[in-house]
């Protein structure tokens, strides 16, 4: 006789599936990172080049780039599964829906947020940040990218199945992401200036924790509605 799958088993398989899918296309999961790099490169291109000037600009450039590339990436979080009916099957699987979506979001973060985080130090150095600032920058982006992915999940759920979802999505997510952006940029700035950034770091962590607990529920509700 068959044994029911535990929520954990189901989630693990979703995770495995999404990673398989991503790695099947070589370098596909690298694209948000590439995008991130390009965006950070665009600034100096569009500016008159003075490193001093760039350094003051680094936090803004980094975070805007990170925010945009994660918004760009999250657009694909539910789109395909929604179109080809996979999400319907999730909803009908008899497993807690929010939990399954959380699994998908985690996979998404592993494929976009994490590489993004690991990529930032290089971009930061290219923008003239001192090597000493790397740990701080890393920490800030680690926390930031988590809450960005989670916020993105809500937006992705809301815009699921709309034409031109992408642009609308960014409209919905960017405002939500403003706090993350501000604290993140502030933390990065302090790190670059070599000052302790505990304050904004705590706030970033709080935002991430809040996101993990609430975002999946909101996303699940949004997706259910979009499925009709």
């Amino acid at each position, binding site marked *: 006789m068959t044994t029911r799958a535990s929520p954990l088993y189901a989630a693990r398989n979703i995770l495995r599936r999404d990673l398989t899918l991503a790695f099947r296309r070589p370098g596909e999961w690298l694209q948000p990172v590439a995008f991130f790099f390009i965006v950070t490169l665009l600034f100096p*291109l569009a500016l008159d080049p003075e490193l001093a000037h760039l350094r003051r600009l680094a936090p803004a450039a980094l975070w805007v780039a990170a925010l945009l590339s994660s918004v760009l990436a999250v657009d694909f979080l539910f789109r395909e599964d929604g179109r080809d009916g996979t999400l319907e099957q999730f909803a009908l699987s008899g497993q807690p829906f929010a939990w399954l979506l959380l699994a998908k979001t985690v996979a998404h973060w592993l494929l976009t947020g994490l590489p993004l985080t690991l990529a930032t130090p290089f971009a930061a150095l290219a923008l003239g940040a001192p090597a000493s600032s790397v740990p701080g920058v890393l920490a800030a982006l680690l926390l930031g990218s988590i809450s960005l992915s989670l916020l993105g999940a809500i937006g992705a759920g809301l815009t699921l199945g709309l034409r031109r979802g992408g642009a609308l999505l960014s409209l919905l997510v960017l405002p939500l992401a403003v706090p993350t952006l501000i604290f993140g940029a502030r933390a990065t700035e302090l790190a670059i200036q070599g000052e302790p950034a505990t304050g904004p770091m705590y706030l970033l962590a709080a935002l991430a924790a809040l996101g993990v607990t609430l975002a999946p529920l909101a996303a699940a509700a949004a997706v259910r509605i979009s499925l009709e």
Partner: protein
Amino acid sequence: MSWAWFHRFGSPPYFYAVAGRLVPWLAWPAGLLILAGLYGGVVMAPPDYQQSDAARIMYVHVPAAYVGMMSYSVMALAAAIGLVWRIKVCHAVAAATAPIGAGFTAVCLVTGMLWGQPMWGTYWAWDPRLVSMLVLLFFFLGYVGLRGAIDDISRADRSSAVLAIVGFVNVPIIHFSVTWWNSIHQGPSIIRKGGPAMPASMWVPLVLVIFGFTFYFYAVMLVRARAEVLRRDRGGSWVRELLAPEENP
């Protein structure tokens, strides 16, 4: 002129065989030229009167730069021919060129940066020459990425061919960037009116390395191209004959 040779090369078996025979004839001279050139440049040649020994980076930087640009041109040309005359072999060549060209471009960038730190006091500057070379690298990466994203090989061939052709505009920009815009990067110093801007003891080794890299590029490219030709083969009898002996040794 007759197009016979053109079509002969277009046939996978012929290309596969000829390329196979050509490789050693390219590889050995390449090795010798590179060794001689690097020895002449890094050991024998006198230090530059301004840059002293830092100038020795030139002997890898400049050849890498030339070959990087050349390989993009080769790629674009092969892609264009393959697209217009629907010749698989040309697509194979283009596909084989991309990763190699990307490598040389990257080396040019890195060596350039390593040279820039002592000379300009910075690893990187937002300078037309530097940026356009960086863009070249992005084109190579985009080309590889596009190929990777398409699973049907013949579609991948033709799609990426379009990209290669479009991106070619960048190559002349790289070359003339120093003359068109005021660049901190130095302009043509070998092929220029009034002969090279450096003593023979410096430009001869440089030229040797450049030729060495070029030979080397074609050798490696042909090996890869043979592989790509095999991948594009569709159960042609020649492959069966080719591999039969190896199947039951």
